[in-house]
C-alpha cells in the first residue's frame, strides 16, 4: 500500500492485509472496549454489547458496517496529513458574481482565513457553488487540503464537473459508495459525508453542502465523521437553503457564524406556495379520477406545453398517478422516477432535454436538480414524509433560470399540516429579507 493512500485517512485492515505498510504508519485501536461501554473509533457509535458480540469475546461495529467492518480483529491505520501537494491549482473560472454573491464570497474567504465555523444560509438557486470559488482558490493556494462533502451522491456528482471546470488544472478526487475508481490523494476531494468516516485529521477546510438533507441530519455518526475528518485547527462551512432547528440553535449559541443570502442570482424572490385543500385526493386518484383542481392545472399545462414535476409521498403511488394522468391527458408525455430506479439518471436527463413534459417523482428530486422553467405540484404535501426542509426545497425547484424566474408551486393536501405551514412561513421570511436587501441595493441590472 502506498503511503499517500493513508495520508489523513483511517483505514480498517486485518493483520494479514497490514503486513506491508510504510514505516510511519500509526496503528490505532478500532473498537474501544471497556467494562462499561463499547465505542467504534471510526464512527463514534456507542454499541450494544449483545448486538456487537462476535464469538471468542470479539466485537464488531454494526453501525458503520457498510464501509467495511470495524472489529476487534482489525485496527485502524493512519498517517498524519503532510499536505504534500506538488502543484497549486488556480481558479480558471471566468464568470462574474453578483454584488451580494461577491460580498458572501469575501466573507467565506475571511472565515476560512480565520479558521472559523459558519453556516451559509442561501436560498435555493442562489448560486452557492460559485460563491465558494474565491475562498477555495485562496485555500488551495495556501497548500491546504480541502474537501466538499454532501449527504447526497447526486449533489456530489453534479458538483464534480462544475469544480473540475472551475479549477481545470487541479486533480480532484470524487469518492462515493458506487465509485469504482481507486482512491487518489488529491488536494481537493469531493465526497459523500459517509466517506468522511475514512478520514482522520485530514482537512484544513471542509465544506458540507446540503447539510439538512437526509441522512446527515438524522445521523449523529456523520456529525462525528465531520469532526474527525477536520484538523484540530481548521475551517468548517455548512451550506444549506433550509437550516434545521439544531443548526440555528448552534448559531444562537455562537458556535457557528451565519451569513445570509436571501436573493437568487437573478435577483428575484422565491415563488410562494399555493395550497389547495382537497379531501380524499388519494381515494379519488386510486380509482383513476383526478381531483378537479389538478384536472384544471393539467389541462392548462397540456394547452401551453408547460413542463412540470409532480411529487407524491410514496413510490407505490407513482404508477397510479401516472395512469390517471395518462388516461385523462394522453397528449402529455411523462415518466416516473424513484430512488431505486435503474434508469433514474437517464430519465432526469430526458426531462432536462425537454424530451418529456413531466416527471412524477418522490422526494429524491427535491434537491440538487435544476430543470429550467418548470412548475411543481405536490400531491399529499401534508404526508409526514415531507419535512419542512423538503417542502422548501421542492418549492425551490421553480424559477431557477433567469429566462423564467417565476413559476407556480402548488400543494394539494387534506389539511394544513405543521411542515406545510412552516414551509410557507420560511419562504415568506426569506422573501421579506430578500425584498429588504433588494431595496437597499443600487439600481443596476445584474447582467451589466
Amino acid at each position, binding site marked *: 500500500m502506498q503511503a499517500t493512500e493513508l495520508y489523513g485517512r483511517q483505514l480498517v485492515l*486485518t*493483520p*494479514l492485509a497490514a503486513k506491508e505498510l510504510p514505516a510511519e504508519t500509526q496503528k490505532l485501536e478500532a473498537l474501544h472496549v471497556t467494562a462499561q461501554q463499547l465505542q467504534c473509533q471510526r464512527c463514534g457509535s456507542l454499541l450494544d454489547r449483545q*448486538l456487537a*458480540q*462476535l*464469538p*471468542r469475546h*470479539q466485537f*464488531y461495529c*454494526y453501525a458503520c*458496517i*457498510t464501509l*467495511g*467492518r470495524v*472489529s476487534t*480483529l482489525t485496527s485502524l491505520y493512519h498517517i498524519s496529513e503532510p499536505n504534500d501537494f506538488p502543484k497549486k491549482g488556480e481558479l480558471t473560472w471566468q464568470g462574474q458574481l453578483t454584488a451580494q454573491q461577491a460580498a458572501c464570497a469575501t466573507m467565506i474567504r475571511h472565515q476560512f482565513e480565520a479558521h472559523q465555523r459558519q453556516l451559509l444560509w442561501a436560498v435555493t438557486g442562489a448560486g452557492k457553488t460559485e460563491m465558494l470559488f474565491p475562498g477555495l482558490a485562496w485555500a488551495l493556494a495556501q497548500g491546504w487540503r480541502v474537501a466538499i462533502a454532501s449527504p447526497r451522491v447526486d449533489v456530489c456528482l453534479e458538483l464534480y464537473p462544475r469544480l473540475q471546470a472551475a479549477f481545470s488544472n487541479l486533480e480532484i478526487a470524487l469518492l462515493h459508495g458506487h465509485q469504482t475508481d481507486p482512491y487518489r490523494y488529491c488536494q481537493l476531494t469531493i465526497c459523500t459525508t459517509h466517506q468522511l468516516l475514512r478520514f482522520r485529521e485530514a482537512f484544513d477546510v471542509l465544506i458540507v453542502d446540503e447539510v439538512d438533507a437526509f441522512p446527515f441530519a438524522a445521523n449523529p455518526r456523520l456529525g462525528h465523521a465531520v469532526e474527525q475528518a477536520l484538523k484540530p485547527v481548521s475551517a468548517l462551512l455548512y451550506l444549506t437553503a433550509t437550516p434545521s432547528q439544531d443548526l440555528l440553535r448552534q448559531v444562537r449559541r455562537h458556535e457557528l457564524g451565519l451569513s445570509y443570502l436571501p436573493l437568487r442570482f437573478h435577483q428575484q424572490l422565491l415563488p410562494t406556495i399555493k395550497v389547495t385543500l382537497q379531501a380524499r385526493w388519494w381515494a379519488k386518484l386510486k380509482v383513476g379520477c383526478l381531483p378537479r383542481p389538478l384536472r384544471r392545472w393539467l389541462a392548462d399545462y397540456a394547452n401551453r406545453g408547460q413542463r412540470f414535476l409532480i411529487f407524491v409521498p410514496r413510490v407505490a403511488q407513482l404508477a397510479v398517478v401516472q395512469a390517471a394522468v395518462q388516461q385523462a391527458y394522453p397528449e402529455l408525455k411523462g415518466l416516473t422516477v424513484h430512488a431505486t430506479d435503474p434508469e433514474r439518471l437517464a430519465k432526469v436527463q430526458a426531462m432536462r432535454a425537454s424530451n418529456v413534459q413531466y416527471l412524477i417523482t418522490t422526494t429524491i428530486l427535491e434537491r440538487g436538480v435544476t430543470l429550467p422553467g418548470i412548475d411543481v405540484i405536490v400531491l399529499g404535501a401534508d404526508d409526514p414524509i415531507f419535512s419542512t426542509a423538503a417542502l422548501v426545497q421542492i418549492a425551490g425547484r421553480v424559477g431557477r433560470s433567469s429566462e423564467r424566474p417565476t413559476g407556480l408551486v402548488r400543494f394539494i393536501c387534506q389539511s394544513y399540516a405543521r411542515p406545510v405551514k412552516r414551509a410557507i412561513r420560511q419562504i415568506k421570511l426569506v422573501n421579506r429579507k430578500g425584498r429588504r436587501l433588494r431595496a437597499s441595493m443600487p439600481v443596476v441590472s445584474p447582467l451589466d
Partner: protein
Amino acid sequence: MPACLLCHRSTEPKISLPWILSWQPLQQPVVCQACWETFTPIFSSQACIGCGRAQTQRSLCHDCQRWAPMAFDNRALFTYNEAMQAYFEQYKFKGDYRLRQVFRAVLTAKLVSIQADFIVPIPVTPDTMITRGFNQVTGWLNDGENLSWLRTTDAAKPIPQSHKTRQDRLLTAQPFELSPDAPDLRTKTVLLIDDVYTTGRTIRHAAILILENGAKSVIGITLAR
C-alpha cells in the same frame, strides 16, 4: 422501536387479544413481513431428492444424476435467489453477525424434525475465522464457534468457492479431514449443515469423508439451494 434487520424499517408488533390473554412476553419478529416474503421456501414434496432443489415433482434432478450414487441426500430450506444472495453478502462477506437471527428459528425447527446421531456443521478455515470472526453455519445454530471434529486441511481454500466457476468448483480437492478426537462413526447417521448448496462439491466432500469412516448414511441440510 425495534427495526427489521434487513431493511431497517421499524417493525410494528402485532398486538392481539389472544396474545394479551396469554400473558406471554411479546415475540418480536427480527425481520419484517415484506423482507421475509422475498425469500422463497422449498417444499420437500416439490424438490429434488438428491440436492433439495425446487422443481415440479419429487425426483432426481439432472445435476444429481451425474454424481456417483452414495448414501447421501441433501435438503434445502430456501431457493438461492437475489434476496438470499443479498443476505449472504451482508451476513457472510460483510460480516454482519447480527443477521444470524434471521434464519435461526427456521433452521433449528428443521433440525429438530430430523433424526440423526451427530449434527456436524461444515467448518471454515482458520484464516476465515481470523478475518470473519465467526463460522456462518454455527452462527445460526449456536455460538458461531468453529469447533468440530470435522475440520479443514491446511491446504484448503486458497481461493474461496464463491470466486470460482462451476468447472473449477467441481475439480476442488478434498478440503476436510477428521480430527483425532472424532467419535466412532460406524453405523451412525450424520447430519451435515452448510449455508449454500451450489454445485454440491463441498458438502459431498464432507459426506464422502464421513461415509469412508464407516457412517451408515449422511443427510445434508443447507439453508439455500
